[in-house]
């Protein structure tokens, strides 16, 4: 089997397959476009965990937005189950979006302040016929239970009545409620109180165990990325610098034997 064929098979069987994806932003008053993502290639399989590490401005959030379907790449191939994400039309695109959910960084901005928790979570369950109409409330309750919140204390509350940690749990419940195959968690604990961070990370890993959800965990914190992957039973560590993936490999291998200078710097900054 030649290399080309092998690539073709990988592209078809992978959950996610990115080939040389770039995102450029044209900025008024500048002659050159801003290159946020620069020729990124990687793939993800069902149930796989990945952590995307880099400092702010490295393009990791933009890459995350490409994955969830919010940012069309300037060039390159972004395939989901072998199909080009940005060529999907109508129902197929909606189905894809449902399969790939995003957990935002800021739990204060991620919930509609005008709706109760139930009103926020229920419509998507109905939209995708995940449960019968009469069972909607029960389903929302069980999602809340899953993320460690007592349903009767939360289901009819408004977001402003909840703490940051509670809101982020709601956001996780909301993302998982539509039964996604892949969740992109973009700095999900950066704005959470330090003492609660690991419990939220553990929550994400629980859902991987229970539903087989894949994760792309975006963070600037190498230690947190390592915790996420090792606790989750291993996975892929991807290091991003200035829009480029400078290093990618199994987490233990990369941590113990980093090849790129930037990766070494990130690891050193943790151990110091």
């Amino acid at each position, binding site marked *: 089997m030649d290399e080309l064929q092998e690539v073709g098979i990988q592209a078809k069987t992978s959950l996610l397959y990115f080939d040389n994806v770039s995102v450029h932003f044209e900025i008024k008053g500048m002659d050159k476009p801003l290159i946020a993502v620069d020729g990124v290639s990687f793939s993800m399989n069902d149930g796989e965990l990945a952590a995307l590490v880099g400092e702010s401005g490295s393009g990791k959030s933009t890459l995350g937005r490409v994955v*969830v*379907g*919010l940012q069309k790449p300037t060039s390159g191939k972004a395939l989901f189950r072998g199909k080009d994400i940005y060529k999907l039309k109508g129902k197929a695109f*909606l189905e894809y*979006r*449902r399969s*790939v*959910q*995003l957990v*935002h960084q*800021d739990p204060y*901005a*991620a*919930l*509609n*302040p*005008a*709706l109760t928790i139930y*009103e926020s979570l229920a*419509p*998507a369950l109905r*939209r*995708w016929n995940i449960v019968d109409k009469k069972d909607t409330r029960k389903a929302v309750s069980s999602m809340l239970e899953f993320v460690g919140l007592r349903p009767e204390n939360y289901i009819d509350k*408004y977001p*402003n009545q909840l703490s940051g940690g509670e809101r982020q749990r709601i*956001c996780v419940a*909301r*993302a998982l*409620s*539509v039964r996604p195959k892949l969740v992109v968690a973009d700095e999900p604990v950066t704005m959470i109180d330090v003492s609660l961070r690991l419990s939220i990370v553990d929550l994400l890993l629980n859902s991987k165990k229970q539903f087989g959800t894949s994760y792309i965990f975006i963070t600037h914190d190498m230690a947190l990325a390592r915790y996420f992957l090792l606790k989750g039973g291993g996975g892929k560590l991807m290091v991003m610098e200035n829009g480029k993936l400078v290093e990618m490999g199994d987490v233990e291998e990369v941590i113990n034997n980093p090849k790129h200078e930037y990766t070494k710097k990130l690891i050193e900054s943790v151990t110091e």
Partner: protein
Amino acid sequence: MKYGYILRRIAILVATLYTVITITFILVRLSPYDPYAYFLSQEASMGIASPSQLAALAEYYYNLIPNQPIYIQYFQYLISVMEGNFGHSLIYPQMTVANIIATRLPWTLYIVITSTVISFFIGTYAGQRLGYKRGGKVDGSIVTFFTVLHSIPIYGMGLILLFFISLKAGLLPSAGAYSANVAPGPNLPFIISVIRHSILPISTFIFGSVGGWTLGMRANTISVLGEDYVNAAELRGIPTSRIASRYVGRNAILPQFTSLVISIGFAFGGAVFVEQIFTYPGIGQMLVTSVGDGDYPVIMGITIIIIAAVLISVLVADLTYQFLDPRVRK
């Protein structure tokens, strides 16, 4: 709902109103050109009045008793205003100021409330559509149009409409609230006449304010569209129409709603111009007429009513806001 908060708001309203009443008293009584002293000297010079008759006249028109210390006069005035007694008109001595306001106010309320509500709905709808089409060609030209519209002062707009629609084209009447040849009452010709006469004043208010509603709603819509919860809803496949109403519309309209109630109050001030231009018999036109006639009791009464309208609408906006925005509710 916090009762302490409501009570505090009402206390502020009462205190402000009290200040306003005091200021109207001071303006009339203590200004260098003292209309009340002028009135007394005029009545005296006509030679009709003995001091006791003069005192009776002063109380009749101004609620003031001459030859009393100023603080007694002040309390006298305060008490009668609180009783709803604003004195009598100098020009129409048989009419109380309260009577004049009661016959004029409904016309102003009709014009102001109708136009504000229509303008609000048009502006909110157009603003949300434009917000969704932000950055496009349609958006750019319509925004320019509304900006220009918004920057025309309301009296300029009134004169333009009066000149072209009424005087040049003769499509609609130019003055009054209804024709002389219909009998006021619940009959069809009267209602049609009232509507025809009110179209121009109402349109003037609408043209003067719809640009503001549109641009405001457009800006709010654009900022809400950038919120994380909107794209999270898109990702979950929430239908577009539901996102437009429950996510974008609901959150973008909140600041608009506060302005809506407040603007009804402030439109009373705008009514002064618009009613004068269309000789519409509301309190605004009455105010202008009274200023021309030097009818001070009426001026004082209408000033208090206009300011009370602003204060009450601000209070209503404040209290209703908590029902709309769960973040203010506790």
